[in-house]
């Protein structure tokens, strides 16, 4: 085993020893490169990262001693140092011998500081790679030289490209195991090149390496004189960063927090997403569109004249414009768009699959809104890049969807602005982060109308309310207690967070049905209209309660037939005629008996009691409160059945 060479190109130690001030000055001006490594399970990622840490002298003696002991105990490299053990952090992974989560590592050379996201190659952990890639400037895609381009190589490349990484390194690893064979290497590079082009990757840097032995990692390999490019470390140190690109875009500052220490100061804090800002610049507050001028750029060390993308700043404005967390400050003459419906790519990250129509929380920049995701247009097969029809998205699935937010948001396409185009979805119940997404463009109004007609189904309405629509149809004699009990039921449902509406004689007879009297024909029409209204309301996802005498079985059956099976719940408020007449709350029985009211149910018009009501309430046995409790319990039991 070749022990790692210590004669790397880093002369830092001499400078540290001789002139620490010069060294510090040099190192304060280092840039930062964040990158990810990705590859399949056995491609040697952890070994490579361990090697980079080791060769950049980030491994201390005590860690090395522990590493040597660990290598002998649990290592997979025999008596040799197992560099992978340096980076396989959690105890569970050590036992399994694979990394199972995103881990961040740090090392530095004279020229740059590096943050590495170590992302697993294991099939079910696509979400971890997307997570690691979201903050990366560069991706190192590892290939086992013996295996060539694999399905997972394609997936990782696709994901890196999807998340917007422009710098891609193809590290063909384990060259030592194919005798440093140039032809095999070039065949792999050509194979990868044609695949990369097919998904839109226009440039990548191939490097033949051995992470295990150190070939072309920090120093040029003597085993591959035919390779004329840079070793991996040198490439990472010198590759041009896209750091200035964001600064040349229009100014955008998502407002994070408003600072009001006293009445005279109002500062708007946030991290500049793109562009630059100077005092005196005209700015616009989105979504309101109001304009103002930058008065100061405030810092603890004194005011700044200007600030640029990437900096966390505090601005004050000349006017008292309304501006709070979630708003975006923008250059006045080139503001971002505001919209509420988008086409977007989603990466699903939760075990519980996407529920189209259900509202989720969406966090985009500092904006936090409720959003509905509609059934995917298609899912992308991340191995073949094929578009597949899909009704939903499961863990690690990637698809293109339409999103509708409950209020307009300030956004830019992800390609133009990661901060205003990248978002996460949060499950409202579990609070978990269930998806990451990238907005592409806003859908125009004409498309909205078309799409709404097709897509907002009654299931979508109900899903939004987290309930199954029902029609609780209270029937019984006048004075039986229908409205009283229905009212109590609705109060309880409301307290349970259910969305409901009560239709009764009071709010229907005076408006919708004021043209109707009490003849048998009008009674039928009355019930038909109530049924139709109730049906619309259940289509809207509501739990509807109706309190009408509704004396005829046929009309009740007619309404039952309007609704999907199970939604019509007939509740017979069963009170003896004598008892109802004794109560006579509205004095109607007295009038009817006196002949002043014609066609009064129970007196001169029949009441056809339900034969098989879902619920029967005997008001002689139950108080209205008990009756209401009984009905709510019945309803909850139905919900539980439906969910099971």
């Amino acid at each position, binding site marked *: 085993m070749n022990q790692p060479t210590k004669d790397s190109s880093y002369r830092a130690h001499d400078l540290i020893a001789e002139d620490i001030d010069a060294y*510090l000055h040099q190192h304060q001006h280092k840039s930062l490169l964040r990158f990810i490594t990705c590859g399949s399970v056995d491609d040697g990622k952890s070994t490579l990262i361990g090697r980079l840490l080791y060769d950049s002298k980030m491994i*201390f003696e005590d860690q090395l001693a522990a590493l040597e002991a660990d290598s002998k105990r649990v290592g997979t490299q025999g008596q040799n140092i197992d560099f992978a053990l340096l980076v396989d952090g959690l105890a569970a992974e*050590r036992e399994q011998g694979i990394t199972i989560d995103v881990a961040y590592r740090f090392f530095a050379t004279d020229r740059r500081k590096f943050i590495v996201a170590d992302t697993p190659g294991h099939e079910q952990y696509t979400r971890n790679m997307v997570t690691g890639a979201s903050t990366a400037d560069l991706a190192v895609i590892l290939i086992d030289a013996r295996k060539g381009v694999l399905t997972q190589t394609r997936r990782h490349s696709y994901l890196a490209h999807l998340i917007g990484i422009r710098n891609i390194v193809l590290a063909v690893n384990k060259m030592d195991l194919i005798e440093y064979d140039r032809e095999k290497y070039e065949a792999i590079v050509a194979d990868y090149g044609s695949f990369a082009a097919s998904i839109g990757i226009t440039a990548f840097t191939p490097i033949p390496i051995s992470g295990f032995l150190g070939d072309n990692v920090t120093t040029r390999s003597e085993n591959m004189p035919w390779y004329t490019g840079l070793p991996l470390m040198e490439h990472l140190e010198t590759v041009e960063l896209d750091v200035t690109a964001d600064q040349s875009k229009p100014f955008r500052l998502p407002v994070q927090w408003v600072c009001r220490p006293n009445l005279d100061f109002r500062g708007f*804090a946030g991290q500049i997403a793109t562009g630059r800002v100077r005092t005196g610049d005209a700015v616009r507050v989105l979504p309101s569109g109001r304009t103002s001028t930058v008065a100061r750029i405030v810092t603890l060390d004194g005011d700044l004249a200007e600030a640029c993308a990437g900096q966390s700043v*505090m601005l004050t404005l000349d006017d008292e414009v309304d501006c709070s967390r979630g708003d975006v400050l923008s250059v006045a003459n080139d503001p971002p768009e505001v919209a509420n419906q988008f086409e977007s790519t989603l990466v699903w990250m939760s075990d519980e699959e996407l529920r189209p129509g259900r509202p989720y929380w969406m966090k985009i920049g500092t904006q936090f809104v409720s959003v509905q995701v509609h059934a995917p247009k298609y899912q992308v097969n991340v191995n073949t890049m094929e578009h597949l029809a899909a009704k939903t998205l499961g863990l690690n699935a990637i698809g293109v969807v339409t999103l509708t937010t409950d209020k307009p948001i300030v956004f830019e396409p992800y390609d133009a602005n990661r901060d205003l185009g990248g978002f996460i979805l949060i499950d409202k119940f579990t609070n978990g982060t269930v998806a990451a997404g990238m907005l592409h463009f806003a859908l125009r109004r004409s498309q909205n109308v078309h799409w709404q007609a097709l897509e907002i189904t009654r299931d979508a309405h109900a899903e939004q309310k987290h309930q199954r629509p029902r029609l609780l149809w209270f029937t019984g004699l006048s004075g039986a207690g229908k409205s009283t009990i229905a009212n109590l039921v609705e109060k309880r449902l409301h307290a349970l967070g259910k969305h409901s509406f009560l239709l009764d004689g009071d709010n229907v007879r005076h408006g919708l049905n004021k043209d109707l009297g009490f003849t048998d024909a009008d009674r039928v029409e009355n019930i038909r209209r109530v049924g139709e209204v109730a049906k619309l309301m259940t289509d809207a996802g509501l739990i509807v309660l109706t309190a009408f005498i509704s004396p005829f079985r046929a009309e009740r059956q007619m309404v039952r037939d309007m609704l999907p099976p199970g939604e019509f719940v007939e509740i017979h408020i069963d009170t003896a005629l004598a008892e109802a007449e004794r109560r006579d709350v509205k004095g109607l029985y007295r009038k009817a008996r006196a002949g002043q009211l014609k066609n009064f149910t129970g007196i001169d018009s029949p009441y056809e009691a339900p034969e098989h009501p879902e619920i029967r309430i005997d008001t002689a046995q139950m108080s209205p409160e008990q009756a209401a409790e009984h009905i709510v319990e019945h309803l909850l039991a139905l919900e539980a059945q439906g969910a099971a």
Partner: protein
Amino acid sequence: MTALTHLQRLEAESIHILREVVAETDKPVMLYSVGKDSAVMLHLARKAFFPAPPPFPLLHVDTTWKFRAMYEMRERMAKESGMELLVHQNPEAKARGINPFDHGPLHTDMWKTEGLKQALDLHGFDAAFGGARRDEEKSRAKERIFSFRSANHRWDPKNQRPELWKLYNARKHKGETIRVFPISNWTELDIWQYIHLEQIPIVPLYMAAPRPTVWRDGLLLMVDDERFPLRPGEQPVMRSVRFRTLGCYPLTGAVESTASTLTEVIQETLLTTTSERQGRAIDHDQAASMEKKKQEGYF
């Protein structure tokens, strides 16, 4: 065009995180351990909210066994920052006289782990900033910046929320709390460079000076006060020493050094060949010990 340096990028990220927590949680607190990482975190907080003072208190979970110089620094920084300082000492540990000499791991468990849980519950804090860095230790390398704890303060490393871009999901259930690590992505060297650049005050113990010390169990310990029980034959010797990390003085090993200025300390740090936690007893217990402690609620 001005390319930001790595320190400027780290600073901007940390400030973003600090502000995000203040905007999205009900009652945050900053855990202040008086060490250099805490010093940097506090400095970043003052920058993040200037001209307002940071809108949360400082909490020191005290073991009563810190170096005297740390207590002096604590009082000074509370005054300078204009922030409220809360000090919590676990009353049960106090009553039972738990100390690092007689009680071994129980000392850390009672004073720090239990003390922290007590203090968070007592004040009802729902988010606590901590100065942990990912480069310190392997289990930290995988911990999220927003790290959730159950109502029982337990960490579940297998059930962490993905953190993408700079979007942090701070939604939590009643009873859950969040530990937030704004300097996760800083390394020890970044910390030193930033202290140097920003002239951040730190406890003088980080700089070498003649101090009374004894060698014990492989650690060079400072006899900071009269509570230090000397074993037969032990005699404190004045040695020029400094500390790379600061904790309870009977548990924190010094290194022999003549680096008495900040730049000399940085110089020595850069040339050193052992990692900084090596001077701490807690990590040596067993493999993956920190991960276990964290699952149990240690910060």
